C-alpha cells in the first residue's frame, strides 16, 4: 500500500545568479518518516530546506509540503510545519515558559492548551525548576532540546531540523534523538539535516546531497549494501569525495 506523501519535490532548483545552489532535486517524504538530509557543508541542504519551509522562493521545479504548493500556498505551509534553524532561535531574554507561551500563542494555541503544553514540556525536559530561568542562562544542550520541543509545540505535520545537534556532547545528542523518536511516534514527520553519520543510521531513509544534487536516497542499510560499505561514514565518504565544491 502506498503511504501518504507529506513532502514532494520534483526537479526543485535554486539559482543565486550563476551559482546553482540546489540542482534539480526530486524526492518525497512519507508521513511519519524520519528523513535524513545529508551532505557536506555547502552542498545545498539548508537552501533546499528553506525553499520547502516557504522562506525562499525556488527558481524552478515543483514542491508540495503537507499538501500545499511552495509557490502559492507558502503561508498555509507555515501553519503546518515546525522549523528549527541552524542559528539558535529562541528569545534569550525571555524565560523558558515565556518562550513556550509566545511560540504556542503565535501558532494559535488556546490559553489552556498552552498551560498544558508548558507543563508537559517542562516535565519531559526535566526543566520544572527552570521555568523562570532566562533562556540565555541555559546550557547549550538544554537550549537545543527546548528549541526542538517548541518547534513542535503546535503538533505540526512536519518538523524541519537544520543541523539540530551541532556543537553538543554525545550524551545530549542521544537525548535529543530520543525526543525526535517520541515526536515521530506521535505521528510528526521529521526532516533532519546532519553531519553526524551515526545520526544518519537513526533515520528511516536518508538522501545524500553532493554539489546541489541528490546522489543517493535509500534506507541506511540498503545504502551500505549498494556501496558495499560497513558504515554510513564510508558511504558518505565515497559520495562526498566526488564533490567539486568546497565547504564553507
Amino acid at each position, binding site marked *: 500500500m502506498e503511504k501518504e506523501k507529506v513532502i514532494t519535490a520534483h526537479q526543485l532548483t535554486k539559482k543565486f545568479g550563476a551559482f546553482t545552489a540546489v540542482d534539480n532535486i526530486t524526492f518525497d517524504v512519507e508521513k511519519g518518516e524520519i528523513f535524513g538530509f545529508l551532505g557536506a557543508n555547502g552542498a545545498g541542504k539548508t537552501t533546499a530546506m528553506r525553499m520547502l*519551509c*516557504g*522562506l*525562499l*522562493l525556488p527558481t524552478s521545479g515543483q514542491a508540495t509540503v503537507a499538501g500545499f504548493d511552495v509557490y502559492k500556498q*507558502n*503561508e498555509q505551509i*507555515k*501553519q503546518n*510545519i515546525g*522549523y528549527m*534553524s541552524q*542559528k*539558535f*532561535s*529562541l*528569545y*534569550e*531574554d*525571555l524565560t523558558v515558559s*515565556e518562550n513556550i*507561551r*509566545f*511560540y504556542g*500563542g*503565535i*501558532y*494559535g494555541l488556546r490559553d489552556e492548551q498552552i498551560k498544558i503544553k508548558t507543563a508537559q514540556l517542562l516535565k519531559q525536559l526535566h526543566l520544572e525548576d527552570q521555568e523562570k530561568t532566562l533562556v540565555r542562562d541555559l546550557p547549550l544542550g538544554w537550549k537545543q532540546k527546548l528549541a526542538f520541543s517548541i518547534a513542535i509545540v503546535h503538533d505540526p505535520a512536519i518538523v524541519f531540523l537544520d543541523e539540530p545537534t551541532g556543537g553538543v556532547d554525545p550524551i545530549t545528542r542521544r537525548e535529543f534523538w530520543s525526543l525526535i523518536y517520541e515526536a515521530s511516534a506521535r505521528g510528526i514527520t521529521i526532516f533532519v539535516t546532519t553531519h553526524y553519520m551515526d545520526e544518519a543510521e537513526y533515520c528511516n531513509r536518508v538522501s545524500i546531497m553532493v554539489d546541489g544534487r541528490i546522489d543517493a536516497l535509500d534506507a541506511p542499510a540498503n545504502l551500505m549494501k549498494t556501496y558495499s560499505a560497513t558504515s554510513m561514514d564510508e558511504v558518505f565518504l565515497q559520495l562526498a569525495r566526488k564533490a567539486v565544491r568546497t565547504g564553507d
Partner: protein
Amino acid sequence: MRMLKFLLQKELRQIIRDPAIIRILFIMPMVQLLILPLAADYEIKNINLGVVDHDHTEYSRKLVNKVIASGYFRLKDDSPTFNQGLKAIELDKTDLILEIPAQFERSLIKENQASLFIAVDAINGVKAGLGGAYLQSIIQDYNQDVRVQWIQYPRYNPQPTIQVTYSDWYNPNMNYRVFMVPGILVMLVTMIGSSFASNNIVREKEMGTIEQINVSPIKKYQFILGKLIPFWMLALTVLTMGLAIARLVYGIVPLGSYFTIYVFAGIYLVAILGLGLLLSTYAQTQQQSMLVSFFVTMIFNLLSGLYTPIESMPGWAQMITKFNPVSYFIEVMRMVMLKGSGLGDIKFQMLAMLGFAVFFNGWAILNYRKRSG
C-alpha cells in the same frame, strides 16, 4: 488580534527586561530637557569688553559704567591705545573694543555730537553681531540720558527721530525657553521613535529570531503592529515626562490643550515609527540601522526650524522642510503651546502627517518580506 496580544506581550517583556533601554528612556529626556534649555541660549551674555579711553572724563567714565551695568558685558581690558586693545582681542581676552576719542566730552558739550568707535571680533558671528547691537543700543540710551540731563531740549527737535516700540505677541517676555523646550521635546521623541524601533527589528535579524517569525503563520502587518505599538507607547511616555518637566521646571503651560498635543503626537509617532521600521527592513546590522537613523534624524532636526527659522532658509531648503515630519511637529507644538491653537487650526498639519504615516508604514510593509527571492 490574539496573535497581536502574544506579540505585544513578548515585546513589552523584552523592553522591560533590558535595563539599558529603560535607563536611556528616562535619563536622556531628563538630561536634555534640564540642561539644554538652560545652556543653549540665544541670549548672549558675558561678552568680554575692552575699553580704550582717550578722554578720561566724567562722561566717558559714565558711558563705560553704563555699559558694564547692563549686565551683558564684562570689562576685561583697559588699554591706553587702540593697538594695545587690539592685542587683547588677538589674545582672545576680549570680544570687542569700545574706543572713546580724546575730545569725547568736549565735542559732546560744545558741538552737541560725538563719535565713538566699536571694533568687533567677528569669529563667532552670532556673538559679534549681537554684542555690537547691544552696545549700540546702550550707547543710544546713554545719548538720551545725556540729552535729558543737561542739554536743553529745543522746542522743536531739530532732527525728527523715529522711536520704534515692540510688542511681542504670543511670547511677550521673549522667553527663550518657552520657544526651545517644546522643540527639544520633539527632537527627543523623534530620536526614540526612529532609532529604537529600527534597532529592535534589526536585532531580531542578527539574533536569527526573525527567521523563526518568518516561518510562522504571523502576518506581516501583525508583526509590524507588534513592533509599532510598544514603541508608540514608550515615546508617548517620554513625551508625557517631557511635558511634565516643562511644566514643573520651566513653568511652561500650553495655552492650547494637552489633548491637541497628544492627538497630533499620536499621528506623528506612527509616521516616525514607520520610518524607523522602513529603515530596519533595509539594514542588516544594528550598526547600519544606527548610522542611517542618526543621519536621517540629524538632517530632519537641523532642517526642522528648531535652530534656525525655516523662513530664512534658501528656497530649495524650504522645499525640503515640506517633506520633513519633524518641522510639522515643531510648528504644531509652538502653535499649541504659545498661540493656543486647537485641532481645527492644525488640520493641514494633521493631514500631512497622516500622509507621512501611510507612506512610511506602507513602504515598510511592502518591503518586509517573509520569503526572500
